[in-house]
């Protein structure tokens, strides 16, 4: 297996994992400060609504991002981490992979809109799964860019 641009791949992997850890919020580290003032919440303040009812809780504290954002970040980190394994599969047709990512983005919009207008009620799990599919499909776009098999 050949690796191209290992520094770029490693840096993005590291950043993605760090983002997921920060997004889990202060509960993971049993922080004693109230969650709205924890640095993890402040970090994601401008990127997520952080509504506690729409977030997973750890140790009595909500995560720093909502369940959908958590799904997106962790899905991307997982997908990116699996790129060496996924490169064995022949997912090299970019247009096909791009379409999946666009479809996943649309699914998330439709799910959020449907919930907003009272057509259905989504759950923490359904939002996480849809977000995860969006995040991992975004990572899948890079299959074949970093790892090659002869």
């Amino acid at each position, binding site marked *: 297996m050949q690796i191209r*641009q290992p520094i*770029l791949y490693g840096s*993005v992997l590291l*950043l*993605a994992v760090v*983002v997921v850890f920060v997004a889990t919020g202060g509960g993971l580290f049993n922080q004693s*400060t*109230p*969650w*709205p*003032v924890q*640095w993890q*919440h*402040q*970090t*994601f*303040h*401008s*990127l*997520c*609504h952080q*509504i506690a009812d729409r977030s997973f809780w750890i140790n009595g504290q909500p995560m720093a991002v909502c369940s959908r*954002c958590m799904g997106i970040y962790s899905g*991307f980190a997982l997908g990116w981490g699996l790129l060496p394994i996924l490169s064995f599969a022949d997912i090299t047709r*970019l247009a096909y992979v*791009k379409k999946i990512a666009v479809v996943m983005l649309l699914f998330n919009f439709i799910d*959020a809109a449907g919930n*907003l207008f009272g057509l259905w009620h989504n759950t923490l799990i359904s939002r996480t799964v849809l977000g995860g599919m969006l995040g991992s499909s*975004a990572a899948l*776009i*890079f299959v074949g*860019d970093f790892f090659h098999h002869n």
Partner: protein
Amino acid sequence: MDEVAEQQAEQNNQPSYWPSVGIAGVIFGIIVFALSLVTGYTMINSEPTGSLFSPVQIILWVTVCLVGAFGGMLAIWHYANEYDISIKLGKGALIGLFTGVCLALVTVLLNQLWQVIDPDMTQKMIDSTIANFEAADLPDAQKQQMIDSTVQSMRNQNSIGKQLLYNLPMYGILNVITGMIGAKVFGKQEE
């Protein structure tokens, strides 16, 4: 050695990406700021319901997030369209990073300017938040704790240092990724 020299020469011959970074950063920075402002004033002018966010505010927030994250992609699209060249993933990541930083700087700068135009905005938002918590169906002790910590958090977000500390890395990281996606989607791929 020759290959390295060739790559260096090729890099030097490529047009500058800074105009694309600037354009995308400023445009998306202004949009993010404007949407945040609308979200803030929607909150100030809404009746206390016991819930911190209305559906409209959630839509606005999601839009802010999407706009903030996709600045890198716009910069790549502009760069690729302008010069019709191939863009490597590393360069896409770099353009995305700079766009995210530029976007964050523009947003923070405009936020600071707005505090001169409407110095009472933060206080009005704090009052609205307190009114919403007061209307919420929570035990008194928990309610007071939530009010104190949320007000402290809102005051923290007013400081330019804190805004830069939190916004620069997050917008930078997100735009690194969208910049790379942009390079895959809009840049002509080299074989």
